[in-house]
């Protein structure tokens, strides 16, 4: 075959398969929502999954938030002191964390920590016929397995992002006040005046909620769709990280431009 045709057909194939996957992921998403009532009626299933996605991600979130906050403090100080406004360091740290780094870095870490675990677990359940077995017992795997994990992810993400931002601010404080010597009062008061609850804190929460939906549904879909082999599951896990990360960054841009325009 003509090499140009080969390339073209390759591109076409890629595009159609992507669109197909997007469609079936959306279908899974809708089914998950439809079956949500069942997972809420038996809330313990969701609580169990919050433990595995949320609580288990806590350590990595807290440690990275602390370091991100400290680095922000240091970097911010070196730049701000040139303009003689090193008191604004609190504002810089808080705004950077609340608006961007909190939701985005949390989502990226979540995809790596909890997302991969979800994909691998569901992929293996599929490979070992556990999902089929459930189907044959007249129990919908979407209601019993997918939906509780979905809501656990959606609930955990904003909580983790809030913790990330708070711990990050404390990290920034630790660098700015005791180490560099910025005034304690100025640090907090500047922050207090310039950070708006509605614009910054709530918008950050909305972002992390959207990221929670995206990351969790991607992880669930990749697992649910994985070929039932060892190779299939491992590739699905990799795809979860790549797709989630790119989706989070893309969504972040879209959400930010919406929020800024208002």
């Amino acid at each position: 075959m003509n090499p140009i045709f080969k390339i073209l057909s390759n591109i076409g194939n890629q595009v159609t398969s992507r669109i197909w996957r997007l469609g079936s992921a959306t279908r899974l998403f809708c089914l998950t929502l439809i079956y949500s009532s069942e997972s809420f009626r038996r809330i313990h299933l969701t609580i169990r999954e919050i433990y595995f996605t949320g609580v288990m991600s806590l350590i990595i979130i807290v440690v990275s938030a602390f370091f991100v906050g400290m680095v922000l403090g240091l970097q911010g100080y070196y730049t701000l002191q040139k303009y003689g406004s090193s008191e604004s360091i609190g504002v810089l740290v808080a705004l950077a964390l609340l608006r961007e780094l909190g939701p985005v870095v949390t989502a990226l870490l979540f995809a790596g920590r909890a997302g991969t675990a979800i994909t691998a677990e569901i992929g293996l359940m599929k490979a070992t016929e556990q999902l089929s077995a459930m189907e044959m017992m007249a129990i919908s795997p979407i209601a019993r397995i997918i939906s509780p994990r979905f809501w656990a992810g959606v609930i955990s993400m904003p909580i983790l992002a809030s913790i990330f931002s708070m711990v990050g601010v404390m990290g920034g404080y630790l660098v700015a006040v005791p180490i560099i010597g910025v005034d304690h009062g100025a640090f907090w008061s500047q922050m207090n005046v310039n950070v708006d609850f509605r614009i910054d804190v709530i918008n950050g929460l909305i972002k992390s909620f959207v990221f929670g939906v995206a990351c969790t549904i991607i992880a669930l879909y990749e697992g649910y769709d994985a070929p039932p082999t060892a190779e299939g599951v491992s590739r699905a896990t990799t795809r979860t990280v790549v797709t989630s990360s790119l989706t989070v960054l893309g969504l972040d841009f879209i959400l930010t431009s919406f929020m800024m325009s208002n």
Partner: protein
Amino acid sequence: MAQKNIVEIKNLSFGYGNFMLHKDISMVFPRGKVTAIMGGSGCGKTTILRLIGGQIKPKAGQVTVDGKIVHKQDRQGIYELRRKMGMLFQHGALFTDLSVFDNVAFPMREHTKLPESMIRDLVLMKLNAVGLRGAHKLMPTELSGGMARRVALARAIALDPDIIMYDEPFAGLDPISMAVICDLIRTLNDALGATSIIVTHDVEEAFSFADYIYFVADGSVAAEGTPKELSKSKLPFVHQFVHGEKDGPVPFHHNAPSYKKDIYEWV
């Protein structure tokens, strides 16, 4: 209301895309009997079980379970039918995050509102039937292949199903476990008054306990009959299968152009 045949397959065809896996298959599974479906690997035996369970839809023909056409049921209807079925998967398909006890209790907890004390008694009863009451605290990863299969069997019969389906129950088992499973299939079937459908390629075992056997080859029923009839059968395919000959109507080689052509004209 109760039909003589609890499961009936009529003129069933199924396939993926242009490839037809089953062509015009008809089978009946009478109540209370153990029926085996035999055939080479990859001839779509397991698919027949999935068609009975309503996990996939036939291209033509129909499967009737307890007088109801499976693929014409809505979700609710299919789930209703599946409650009458228990299925033992090839590798057990135990839920790895639950203990043996919880695995067997799972269908009861999902489908009934029985008090926990009664569920406990029932689970222990089911586990006792497969001889694993002592293992109820273990996790599935701590079980051997044969034990896992027995736990899965206990789970399959948890709700006293009318139909028990076995997907390759002997695959990868040692002779002792095999004999145990073999014995269980027959005793459970008779004790529960259930109907068993067994998909397997183990000739010796199937012939030892089945009431009736279907041979599937090339997408259609190649032979059928009681074990006694079949072992005397002169049909070349059945002969090859029963005696395990490597070449015969089922060729050793996969469909291919001539060897010479492949060697010299490889592109």
